[in-house]
Structures are given as structure tokens and as C-alpha cells.
């Protein structure tokens, strides 16, 4: 009887010891995620109080910025804005690229290019500008900087894309990993199916000078890169590996639960379940206002298109 009394606590200690050791191992593995979560800006204002459930459709605003040394930290324009609607139960996704030069009212700041909303008020104002102009509700945002995108692609081991035509640019900004952020170099991304590393993927989605379709072609390429990242077959075990690459180059309001949901959905999305929209003419038209090249929206055409998918 005495021996049994001693035996049970020892067994419990042993089990508890192994459980704690296992949890420590898992905590160490996932530690980079907690670091990113700690440095990510928690979004404010325009977010609804109740987040949609795990199977409910939700909308994410993807933001990308030139955050090189030319700019004051945290005062960047958003060079890329893509509104993404994800429907887990229907296994559908819709991507809508918003032209960076779209000339719209920016809440509290008059009228300007929609890309300046991020500079004026961070992700909260960027979301609000999109919500009020497009009359949609946004649940979350993800912002990524130049090096963040490069690191992400490199950590994935590169991505496969089909380059539809030669992407040629004699004035591509040479502002990543350089002492001269105002320099430029030449870019030639050759056509066909290719496997791109981070630097070349950034060139592919950022170059715009040599294409007749300018910023619209760039928007298409950005959507294409998102599809390529989706095809990288990520799962939750990849997150710490990726998170450790960002070091302040990503900010998001998305919680871990939603990240897991996104990863699961990405694996289930087929090509036919993905709709891509770029607001080219006739949805928009280009003009000059106050010496600035801007894109004017035709809301009469845009809003019905948007509201087919985005509530």
C-alpha cells in the first residue's frame, strides 16, 4: 500500500514532465509567430465587433508598400491594394485590385489618390477609404513591405508563375538592400512558365514602365503572385518559419485562427473557384488633376461589379 502511494505521484510527475517538455518544444517552434503577433498593429476603428464564424465568408484588404529608405518609416503610400473575399464553405475566392491612383474622397482628408489613405491614417484609414467608397465591409487587413515579400517568397523556396510577356523596365527602382534608394537598374523577366525567387518575384509584380497597360498589368501580376503563393501548399507548421523572415515587414489584424482557416482554404481552392478583377477601362479612366496622373472611377459600373461578391 505504501509503495502504491509513492508510485502514483511518481507516474504523475513523469507524465507531467513529458507533457511540459513537449509543450516547451512546441512553444519553441511556434515562438516566431508570437513575436510577429506582438509587433503587428492591431487594427482599430472600422473593424466590426463580431468576427464572422469559421465557415462564414470574410473580406481581407491586402496592402503592399514601397517601404525603402526614401520614405519616412510608417508613412508609406500603399502601392498595391487588393480586396479579397474568401468563402470557406463555397470554396470560392474573389480578388479585386484597386488602382493605386484611384481619385476618391478620403474620410477626413478631402479628395486624393486612394493610395495616400494608408500614409495619412495607416491601415484603419486605408480600410475606411475602401469601405466608404466601394460600400463594402472589410474584416481584416494584411500589410507587407518590399523585403517582407522578398523574404516570404525565398522562404517558400520560390514560386511558379506564367509570365505572359517579357516584363522589361529600364528604370526599375534599385532600392532594396542598397545604400542608394534613389538608384535604378534594368529588369528583364522573360516570358513563359518560370520559378521566381524573392527578388525576381518582386521585380515581376512591381515593374510597370515597359507595358502599355501600366499599373493595370502590374495589378494582374500581383494577383498572379497571390495565386502562386497559394499553390505553395503551406500549412500551420510553416508559419513559424515564415514569421521569422518578416521582422517588422508585415502587419496584420488577422488572428491565428483565421490564418489556419486561410491556409486550409488555400489548399482547397481550385482554379475555377477563384475570380480575379482588375478595374481597367471602362470601369476607370485616366486623366490629370492638379498635375497628378490619376484614375477616375465609374461608380455606376464598379459598384454593381463589386456587390456581386463583396457585401
Amino acid at each position: 500500500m505504501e509503495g502504491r502511494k509513492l508510485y502514483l505521484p511518481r507516474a504523475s510527475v513523469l507524465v507531467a514532465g513529458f507533457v511540459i517538455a513537449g509543450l516547451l518544444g512546441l512553444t519553441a517552434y511556434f515562438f516566431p509567430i508570437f513575436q510577429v503577433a506582438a509587433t503587428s498593429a492591431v487594427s482599430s476603428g472600422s473593424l466590426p465587433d463580431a468576427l464572422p464564424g469559421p465557415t462564414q465568408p470574410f473580406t481581407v484588404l491586402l496592402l503592399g508598400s514601397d517601404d525603402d529608405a526614401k520614405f519616412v518609416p510608417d508613412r508609406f503610400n500603399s502601392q498595391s491594394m487588393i480586396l479579397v473575399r474568401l468563402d470557406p464553405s463555397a470554396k470560392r475566392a474573389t480578388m479585386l485590385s484597386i488602382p493605386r491612383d484611384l481619385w476618391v474622397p478620403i474620410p477626413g482628408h478631402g479628395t486624393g489618390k486612394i493610395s495616400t489613405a494608408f500614409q495619412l491614417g495607416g491601415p484603419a484609414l486605408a480600410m475606411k477609404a475602401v469601405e466608404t467608397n466601394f460600400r463594402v465591409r472589410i474584416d481584416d487587413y494584411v500589410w507587407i513591405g518590399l523585403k517582407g515579400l522578398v523574404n516570404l517568397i525565398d522562404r517558400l523556396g520560390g514560386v511558379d508563375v506564367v509570365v505572359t510577356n517579357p516584363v522589361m523596365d529600364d528604370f526599375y527602382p534599385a532600392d532594396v538592400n542598397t545604400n542608394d534608394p534613389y538608384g535604378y537598374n534594368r529588369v528583364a523577366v522573360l516570358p513563359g512558365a518560370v520559378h521566381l525567387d524573392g527578388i525576381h518575384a518582386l521585380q515581376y509584380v512591381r515593374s510597370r514602365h515597359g507595358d502599355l497597360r501600366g499599373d493595370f498589368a502590374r495589378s494582374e501580376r500581383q494577383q498572379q503572385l497571390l495565386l502562386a503563393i497559394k499553390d505553395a501548399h503551406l500549412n500551420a507548421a510553416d508559419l513559424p518559419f515564415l514569421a521569422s523572415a518578416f521582422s517588422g515587414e508585415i502587419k496584420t489584424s488577422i488572428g491565428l485562427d483565421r490564418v489556419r482557416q486561410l491556409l486550409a482554404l488555400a489548399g482547397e481552392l481550385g482554379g475555377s473557384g477563384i475570380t480575379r478583377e482588375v478595374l481597367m477601362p471602362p470601369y476607370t479612366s485616366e486623366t490629370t488633376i492638379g498635375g497628378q496622373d490619376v484614375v477616375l472611377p465609374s461608380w455606376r459600373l464598379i459598384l454593381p461589379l463589386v456587390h456581386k461578391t463583396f457585401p
Partner: protein
Amino acid sequence: MKQAAVSAAVVLAMIAFGVGAYNTVGSLRGGTTAFQRPTSSLVAVPGTIYVAQGGALYRLRDGSFKQITPDDGWTQPAGSPDGKQVVAVKQTVNSGDLFLLEGDGRVVAQLTHNDARRAERNHWAFYPRFSADGATIFYSYDPKDPFNSYRVDLAIFSRPADPASHGETDWTLPNQYTGGDTNPMPTKGALVFTRFSIDEHSVMHSQVWLQGRPGSPGVALTAAADDCAQAAVSPDAKRLAMVCRHGELRSMRLVVVPLDLVSASIGPPAAVVSGGLVASPAFSPDGQTLAYLAPASPGGPFQLWTVTLSPATGPASPRQVTQNLSLDSSSPPAWVAS
């Protein structure tokens, strides 16, 4: 003493368990693909195939790869008709130049000098190809637009293969702001190449074109909606292999069509490879097999594959020649007999 040893063993076991949990979760990662330098192939292929990876040229012969240039921007090798020499591109940040090499990678001569001090005054040279007689080299080159420095469109040029000779000939007039004309394939006095265009809905298309002489109008061999590109012509100039994507961005087909140079037309396509991504086909010296590049798994880096073309039974199953490499898929395999 014995109890202390047992306790130490238990603590070590717990630490090992914790490390095991860390490694087990790590092993579930699915996103990355490791690749290595080419050393040997999965299967032997007859003759010699030159490929590019990471800025270096490699020669595959008898199942073994040999690196023939340093990792220094080398890509797009093409063999001379006698199989003794190779013309290839050496690319820097701002320019690309053509070099003539021996089969073992020794530089014979630099054929072009496209570098300049100011970035925008540099030029590119891509996709070099010998003519059937070996006397001329065709390639893509970016002549400058004097009226708009933002326009960079490749056009097809030719020059003598003899390094001592000069005189470039401009063959094609590309559609503006499309990136230009690529993948020249000289064949029996004509030129096959890829041209890009933008339709009325702002959608980019690629077509395979045939042109008889420098500056002539040329004719499109494929429809814009088929989005065909990267054509390779068989040694007897009677068949053409190309990659067509039909507006898709994640799915392509490698097709072979009969080619009639006299009537400037092609016959019905036969799909050799369907689905997934595929790039840069090249015929074997006897014209019976195609080499091409494709990922071994979706999203992965590109490997070398071959597929035998049998007129009687149709194409055989593709054979994967390499694994765990990351071959430059913009660089067609150069397959020579020797």
C-alpha cells in the same frame, strides 16, 4: 547513486521528447523545396544536353552533369550544327551579351558588347540560335526607342557567327510596349519566333510567327486566343513543338504540329503534355524526342524531362531526367548529337 542515474536518464528522455516534438512539427512543413547542383541524371539520354541553373551552364552526357562555366550569369546555351560549339548569354544586372564557347565551356569570343555606364543605355541579348548552316546567329535584342526611353521591346536580330565579322540585321518589328519578340528559331531560310500583342480588352496574347526575310510582314501561325509561345522546330523542319496556355495561367499544353514552310501554315495540334506548367521544348538531334522543362510537383522548381514522339503510337509517357534541381526554365535545353 542508482536513483540519481535513473532521474538523470528520465530528465534526458524528457528533453529528447521536447526536441522530438519540435522536430516532428517542423517535419510537417509543406512550403519549401530544397534543390541542389546538377550531378547526375535519373536516366541517361543519348547525345549531350546543355542546361542552365543559377547562372551556370551544365553539360549532361552519359548520365552525368559537368559544370562548364562559373556561376556568373550564364544562361540560354544553344549548340552549333556540328555540335562542337555553344553560343550562350552572359547576363549582368543591366545587360546581356552573347559569347561563343567551346563545348567544355572555354570562351572562344565575346560576340556582342552591350554594357554601358548609364543603366538605360545598356542592351539585352537573349535566346541565341545558330542558323542551320552555322554561319549566322539569331537572337533577341532591345534597340532603343529615340522617342520614349520607357519603351523596351525586344526585336529579332541576326549577326555572323564568325567573331571576326560584324553587321547586325534587324529582322522583326515588335508590337510596342509588349516586351517584344522572343525565341527566334531559324529554319530553312525562314524565321519562327514568338510575338506578343494586346487585344481590345487589354489582355496580353502570344503567337508563334513565321517570317521569310528581314523586315517582311510575316504571318501568324497560331491564333491569339491559343496563347502559344516558345516554339521549337524539328531538324527536318516538318514539325513544330510549342507551349500553349489558352488564356490559362496555371495550366499549359505542350503540343506538336505539322509545319509547312511553303504554305506558311501548321496542321492540327497533338498534345504531348497537358496540365500543369511546361516550358522551353527542344527537339533531339534525330527529331524523335522532345526535351522540356517542368516542375516535378506543383509550385516546385523546374526539372528536365523528355518525351518520345512516335508517329504510330503517339507520344509515350514523359520521363523525368532530373530531380531536386532548379533549372532555368527560360533557357531551353540545347540538345546536340556529340
